[in-house]
């Protein structure tokens, strides 16, 4: 029968709208407004999963975030799979597809269950540490099966089709939770004119009032909720966010809210809508009104489906019109839980009995239950549930909570639902995210938020205030305080009147004693992680005394539970076992996020092509048009090579290299970092940060420079030109541009503030086209008014003039060893200039080349690339670049002291050399390790590695650069590179300058 557990009337569901959904392949019906859990219970689905370790059948326990069992896989298609969704928090929609995540092969017929039954003693706490540690190499094998059996859900195999985004806010008051306390706070803060955000994780505002018997001003509490929400929505400065969980409380009042905008509509967001949104809020003041979680009592077989939290039963009855059973037994230690029996009774269902652990309860709600003729057993508790796949009865016995003993054999009452309440635990998570330790309050038997430096107030249940009238007042007061602190003037207001009741204190009972003690049936504390009371006792017996150690040894409060349902029970059991108070025991740390967040929400728009900014040069479209393959260099897209039809990378690079060596090539060098340096002390500054001397560099000249850090190791290089006596233009590596600028600013601002010099990044202002090859001069002469005569414009100088009709700076420097000109023009003129160069270059076979050809050509000349041939542990001497070190400069420049350390002066340091394979066809892989003796048994003495390696057409053989211990004194000796396939490549140590060693080609 469909929805056989649905009550004939009541609830906030829309009975006019029936929704079909499926669970584990079977189709069911529910109503609009149901949670998935409510719809499952309405259909009598009691087993929703199997437990983590013992594989026991598990049912729905709670109605909110604290649910440990009903954690399901949702999604009707592969791309929309979502793991670990709490059925209690998932609104029902038409066509929802849900499956259990644990239970293999299925929840009703579970293979692991047999293991669980046999293996009570097989899987004690610390089980993983004890069992699967040895042999260590087997962990991979174990893990596969443990993960499968543990049922942690699965990620989709296809791309998420939905969009997610972020939104940033600044507000005066952020209110967390829209129950009675939060709503009252929002009224107070909103009426003051403050900018307010109020967020609540539930589908609608109201919190506990949504299923409350309480009246306000004699009317149902939900009337007040509706009026309050309407008033808040009418305020221009108030942002109302339902379906939005405040998940993290971060430093300096920065909070993150995870809003689920369309999860209630389907498993895909409607076209044009964002599925989840993360609100990043910087709040002047925060009002925490997160409420309290009811905690269960721990007793035998308390995990059998049909055991539920008392408050959850009320939620299902009053909010969803669902009765999760027929015959109820309530086990409680407090007054408040009596409302469950009253709700159950009012719904026309049978309350078998109430077991109250207290001696003589006389509170208003207790008397109300008595007046209705409900049987109340005092000094009693449910000690054990009967039934295996569902509750069939409850054994109620007299107990002595103080002595922790059972004082009568008791009687077994036939029932199919056991509701328990062990009191309330303020939800201190958010208040503790920044490390503030909660404080135990014996009067309310709960931890409340401790003092913290954050600008926040905690109100209502979260603050240990429970009677409704007090909660409203506390919330309103908190709202007034927050608004006032934020600089607003609070407006006086009145609050609705709640019914006053006498309420008696809760009894300190967390675990119900059992006549057989720990040999009795299992008493579960944390159902998500299968932690039992006996397991916690074992942990303390084995010497784990700190709460953090007990947690890690038993897994109490691990995973997505984050210590919601059974945490306080667990602490209380550990404390009793250790003979200390709960206050002494303390709590574990709480960390963001409060509830699981989808990866989509975390990523927001930062995925696909928006994952990271991409930088294009001014000539990018020309490269695309000319068929370039691109390489990522930092964020830049640089042409890698320009293949002609039918060419692979090798053929293209060979052709490009040949064109540069024979005639002329064109490289887009715009990505090199460019820093404009101005000021009377510019020259002095360069002297201090470069290893070489800059005092005598005349206007119009350029010089190569090396930069080291204080440790003496090379970290960037480039050419710097003198524009005027107090004006230089520096180039850096493409990837190092930002790093170098920050580093220069660091020294200028913190060490040498007396120097008058200023730096400006001009990387994007200039486009740089390098013409390289013997015909570069002839080509450039056709489109430039600059005198290119070899004596008028010698190597390592620069000139200003026009190129292609626009102002240009032309640098005669070379990274290929050929006659080269680097043409710099304003970036927005670059395309026009390029077109003129290309037109003029036709007769010279002008060939565009990319980074790969650039690498080959520079390596033939032995020019280093910082970051490829260096790795942060190489100084100038190691690179055979002592010629670039001005050891006698007057100021002790950065790197000098470092490179004079004893270790830097060793002669057997790894030094950069050329490597020439003996077999010219063999190619040394980059990164390959080198040895002197290939016959040495493993582990061999590794003496260096290959840093750059290429096939060279110009040379006629493959060649490499690499570092070798003491390599500069080993010219002509052999090194060997053993390969993974067992072969060994033999190479000769040679000079790293392979091509044109005298530099004749660039000095023409």
């Amino acid at each position, binding site marked *: 029968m469909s929805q056989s557990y649905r009550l004939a009337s009541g609830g906030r569901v829309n009975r006019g709208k029936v929704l079909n959904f499926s669970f584990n392949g079977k189709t069911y019906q529910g109503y609009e407004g149901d949670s998935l859990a409510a719809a499952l219970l309405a259909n009598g689905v009691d087993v929703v999963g199997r437990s983590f370790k013992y594989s026991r059948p598990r049912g729905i326990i709670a109605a909110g975030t604290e649910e440990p069992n009903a954690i399901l896989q949702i999604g009707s298609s592969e791309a929309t799979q979502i793991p670990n969704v709490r059925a209690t928090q998932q609104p029902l929609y038409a066509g929802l597809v849900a499956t259990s995540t644990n239970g293999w092969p299925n929840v009703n017929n579970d293979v692991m269950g047999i293991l669980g039954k046999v293996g009570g003693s097989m899987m004690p706490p610390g089980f993983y540490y004890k069992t699967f540690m040895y042999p260590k190499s087997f962990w991979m094998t174990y893990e596969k099966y443990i993960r499968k059996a543990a049922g942690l859900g699965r990620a989709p195999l296809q791309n998420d089709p939905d969009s997610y985004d972020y939104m940033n806010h600044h507000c005066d008051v952020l209110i967390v939770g829209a129950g009675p306390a939060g709503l009252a706070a929002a009224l107070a803060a909103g009426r003051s004119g403050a900018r307010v955000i109020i967020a609540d994780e539930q589908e609608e505002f109201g919190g506990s009032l949504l299923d409350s018997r309480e009246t306000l001003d004699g009317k149902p509490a939900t009337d007040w909720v509706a009026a309050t929400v309407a008033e808040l929505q009418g305020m221009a400065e108030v942002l109302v966010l339902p379906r939005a969980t405040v998940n993290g409380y*971060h*430093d*300096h*009042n*920065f909070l993150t809210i995870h809003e689920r905008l369309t999860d209630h509509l389907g498993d895909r967001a409607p076209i044009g809508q964002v599925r989840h949104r993360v609100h*990043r809020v*910087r709040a002047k003041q925060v009002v925490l009104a997160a409420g309290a979680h009811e905690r269960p009592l721990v007793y035998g077989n308390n995990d059998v489906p049909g055991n539920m939290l008392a408050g959850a039963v009320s939620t299902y009855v009053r909010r969803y019109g669902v009765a999760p059973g027929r015959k109820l037994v309530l086990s409680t230690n407090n007054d408040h839980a009596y409302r469950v029996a009253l709700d159950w009774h009012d719904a026309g269902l049978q309350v078998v009995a109430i077991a109250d652990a207290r001696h003589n309860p006389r509170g208003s709600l207790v008397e109300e239950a008595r007046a209705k003729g409900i049987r109340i057993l005092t000094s009693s508790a449910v000690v054990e549930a009967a039934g295996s796949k569902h509750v069939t009865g409850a054994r109620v016995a007299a107990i002595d909570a103080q002595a922790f003993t059972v004082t009568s054999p008791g009687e077994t009452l036939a029932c199919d639902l056991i509701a328990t309440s062990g009191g309330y635990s303020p939800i201190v998570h958010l208040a503790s995210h*920044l*490390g503030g330790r909660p404080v135990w309050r014996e009067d309310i038997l709960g931890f409340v938020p401790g003092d*913290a*430096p*954050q*600008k926040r107030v905690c109100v209502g249940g979260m603050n240990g205030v429970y009677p409704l009238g007090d909660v409203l007042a506390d919330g309103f007061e908190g709202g007034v305080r927050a608004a006032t602190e934020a600089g607003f003037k609070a407006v006086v207001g009145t609050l609705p009147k709640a019914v006053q009741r006498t309420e008696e204190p809760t009894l300190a009972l967390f675990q119900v004693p059992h006549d057989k003690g720990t040999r009795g049936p299992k008493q579960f504390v944390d159902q998500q992680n299968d932690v039992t009371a006996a397991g916690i006792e074992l942990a303390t017996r084995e010497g784990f005394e700190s709460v953090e150690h007990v947690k890690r040894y038993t897994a109490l409060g691990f995973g997505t539970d984050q210590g919601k349902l059974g945490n306080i029970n667990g602490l209380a059991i550990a404390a009793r076992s250790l003979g200390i108070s709960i206050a002494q025991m303390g709590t574990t740390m709480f960390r963001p996020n409060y509830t699981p967040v989808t990866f989509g929400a975390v990523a927001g728009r930062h995925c696909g092509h928006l994952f990271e900014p991409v930088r294009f040069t001014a000539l990018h479209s020309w490269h695309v048009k000319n068929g370039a393959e691109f390489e990522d260099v930092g964020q830049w897209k640089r042409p890698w090579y320009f293949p002609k039809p039918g060419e692979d990378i090798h053929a293209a690079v060979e052709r490009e290299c040949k064109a540069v060596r024979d005639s002329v090539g064109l490289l887009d060098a715009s990505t090199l970092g460019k820093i404009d340096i101005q000021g009377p002390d510019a020259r002095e500054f360069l002297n201090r940060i470069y290893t070489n001397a800059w005092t005598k560099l005349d206007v119009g000249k350029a010089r190569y420079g090396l930069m080291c850090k*204080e*440790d003496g190791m090379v970290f960037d290089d480039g050419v710097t030109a003198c524009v005027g006596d107090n004006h230089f233009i520096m180039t850096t590596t493409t990837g190092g541009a930002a790093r170098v600028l*920050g580093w220069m*600013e*660091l020294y200028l*601002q*913190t*060490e040498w*503030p007396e120097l008058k010099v200023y730096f400006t990044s001009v990387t994007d202002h200039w486009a740089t086209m390098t013409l390289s090859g013997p015909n570069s001069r002839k080509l450039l002469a056709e489109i430039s008014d600059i005198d290119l005569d070899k004596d008028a414009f010698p190597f390592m100088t620069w000139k200003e003039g026009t190129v292609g009709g626009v102002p240009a700076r032309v640098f005669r420097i070379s990274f290929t060893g050929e006659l080269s000109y680097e043409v710099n023009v304003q970036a927005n003129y670059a395309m026009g200039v390029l077109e003129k160069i290309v037109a003029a270059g036709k007769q010279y076979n002008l060939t565009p080349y990319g980074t790969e050809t650039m690498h080959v050509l520079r390596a033939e000349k032995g020019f280093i690339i910082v970051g490829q041939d260096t790795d942060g542990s190489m100084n100038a001497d190691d690179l055979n670049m002592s010629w670039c070190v001005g050891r006698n400069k007057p100021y*002790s420049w950065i790197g*000098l*002291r*470092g490179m*004079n*350390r*004893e270790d830097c002066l060793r002669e057997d340091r790894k030094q950069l050399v050329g490597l020439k394979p003996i077999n010219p066809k063999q190619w040394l892989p980059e990164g390959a390790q080198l040895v002197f003796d290939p016959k040495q048994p493993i582990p061999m003495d590794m003496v260096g590695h290959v840093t750059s390696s290429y096939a060279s057409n110009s040379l006629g053989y493959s060649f490499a650069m690499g570092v070798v211990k003491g390599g500069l004194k080993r010219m002509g000796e052999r090194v060997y590179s053993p390969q993974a396939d067992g072969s060994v490549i033999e190479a000769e140590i040679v000079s790293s300058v392979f091509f044109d060693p005298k530099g004749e080609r660039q000095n023409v």
Partner: protein
Amino acid sequence: MLHIFCPHCGELRSEEEFHASGQAHIARPLDPAACSDEEWGTYMFFRDNPRGIHHELWDHVAGCRQYFNVTRDTVTYEILETYKIGEKPQITAASKASAAPSTVKGLGEKV
């Protein structure tokens, strides 16, 4: 995410605009050549790791590109003051221990 008052911009800005650059007030030795290898190593690598008041160097890298100092409590993450290079902190571990902790001076925001 920290909220940091840039003493150059005169505004509270989010941490993502800034870059932390380690401990503040590490002066480069005036005569590096006079340092032993050990002294030079100490200057380069050895840093304090206090529980409580710490002075840090930050760079408003996505803002004004200016470096400045921050006095931060490493336990609570409170920023007690920010001040320009060359200035001295108003709050130190010693002063914090003796004076009332709630009197926060300068431009730092108390969380």
